[in-house]
């Protein structure tokens, strides 16, 4: 077969299979209850917004979105704040036991959530973090640190050391060098790490399910997983909530595709 034809076939198939399933939720979210329940269900929606209205006002969607924004935002900020200096020290400074630290981080990134779930729950119970949004932020930070440090350290290592050396000669300490010289140069690497942490925290379900038990504190994944109606499954409202939960991610992917691709493959090339 002709190479260009094969490529075209590949593009159409992969893009189609990637997008079409979600289209069914998108169409459903703009239908009316009657259109969903018709036998057979209608293909195209009439463009009703009733499911969005009902999801927002009857199903806590507004709370879920606000909580997800707060949780994902603070996780990203806190994780970066901790990961940036750590990655810089591991990439550039002499630390005894560097290999050990890296091995521990790699090991943490393999932990099944369940293996730490019970103790983390008890820990948060002891310090009063259950059913508070900050209670999920803490484990999220711990679980995103390895990836963030990994990406940032490999990025720092690729920066030319000459500028930093010059700053050191002029008497800048490690902190001053990191803040004034390295940080501005490393903006793309920090951006990549930030996107990946953000997506993780926006999507995480398991710890949020354990720690947040009231709709007023729950994030979007918990809300969507536990979505229930009084008598029947409210598929329309669920589809609307899913579209709302996914829309920001689609925007992020469209705008930041290049950074995501480089960030996720960074581990593969250097590992």
């Amino acid at each position, binding site marked *: 077969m002709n190479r260009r034809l094969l490529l075209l076939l*590949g593009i159409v198939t*992969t*893009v189609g299979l*990637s*997008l079409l*399933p979600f289209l*069914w939720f998108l169409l459903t979210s703009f239908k009316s209850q009657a259109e*969903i*329940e018709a*036998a*057979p*269900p209608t293909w195209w929606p009439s463009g009703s917004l009733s499911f969005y209205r009902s999801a927002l006002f009857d199903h806590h969607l507004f709370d879920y979105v606000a909580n997800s924004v707060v949780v994902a935002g603070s996780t990203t900020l806190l994780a970066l704040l*901790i990961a940036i*200096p*750590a990655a810089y*020290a*591991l990439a550039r*400074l*002499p*630390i005894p036991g560097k290999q050990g*630290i890296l091995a*521990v981080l790699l*090991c*943490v990134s*393999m932990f*099944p*959530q*369940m*293996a*730490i*779930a*019970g*103790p*983390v729950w*008890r*820990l948060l119970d002891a310090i009063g973090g259950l059913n508070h949004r900050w209670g999920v932020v803490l484990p999220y*930070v711990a679980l995103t*640190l390895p990836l963030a440090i990994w990406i940032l350290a490999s990025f720092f290592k690729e920066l030319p050391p000459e500028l930093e050396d010059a700053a050191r000669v002029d*008497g800048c*300490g*490690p902190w001053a060098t*990191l803040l004034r010289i390295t940080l501005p140069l490393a903006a793309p690497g920090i951006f990549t790490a930030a996107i990946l942490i953000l*997506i993780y925290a926006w*999507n995480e*379900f*398991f710890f949020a*399910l354990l720690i947040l038990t009231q709709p007023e504190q729950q994030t979007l*994944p918990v809300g*969507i*997983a536990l*979505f229930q109606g009084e008598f029947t499954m409210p*598929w329309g409202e669920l589809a609307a909530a*899913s579209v709302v939960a*996914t829309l920001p*991610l*689609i925007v992020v992917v469209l705008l930041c*595709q290049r950074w*995501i*691709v480089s960030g996720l493959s960074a581990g*593969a090339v250097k590992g």
Partner: protein
Amino acid sequence: MTSSPRLARHRDSLAAWTMVAPALLVTLVFALYPVLDSFWLSLHHIFVGIPSLGRSFVGLENYLDLLRDPVAHQAFLVTLAFVVLSTVLELACGLVIALVIHERFRGRGLVRAAILIPWAIPTVVASQLWRYIFNDQYGFANLLLFGNRVAEYVPWLAYPSVAFGIIVLADVWKTSSFAALLILAGLQVISDDLYDAAKVDGAGLRQRFWHITLPLLKPALLLALLFRTMDAFRVFDLVFVMTQGGPGDATQVLQFYGYQTLFTEGRLGYGSAISFAVFLMILALSLIYLRAIGSSLLERSRT
């Protein structure tokens, strides 16, 4: 302003430690201590709902119970089947996707973004989506297959093996693009000269794929295999949302069984034993893989 080199070195290592200290502290408190505590708890009988029973040290009894527990056996087999089936399919799909997005063509950025969308979607949303697609009354699968013949609509998720297949399908849809990105990174380091030389020698598209691309991709494929296997072992969200382990125990995976034991039944000791056993399995698997990857990297550097 000059300071002695010894003082400067001392200052550097002090600064280095203050830089890593917060990261180490968070990791210690919220990852390392919990894993060790899990192991410690797994050596006890503890029932959360009945504090009067207290906690009693029982040594490895929970692990011996685990070996005799028929539900745990079933969960282990289901998890194993899920891991093998989903990883093989994801690597195959990931390879195809990677070959497509590695080519140069107009609009490649958009195609890459489109392929990343399933990966970016929350797993919970993907689970509800596939559950709805295979819904017996409102689902797209029935509409597509049977159209107006409503009487023939199939309750897909009610059949054990079909439900298992749908969970695999949802996972493959969701994560093939992640495997594709790891494989893409492998494709990008294969030099164009090799392909050009093969073309001069008269090798066709298929020969070039089998004799150049695939052998040189081995390290990237192994790495994707490592990441995907570890992740598939931890499958939870899909099962929680789509089937709750059912119908029967057709989709009862280890993580979900651990969750039920820990948080629904409140058997902290036994639940910890289940989750710690899963942790040990993942650890063992990754050590085996890392060995294989290490040796394949060595092979590559020797040639």
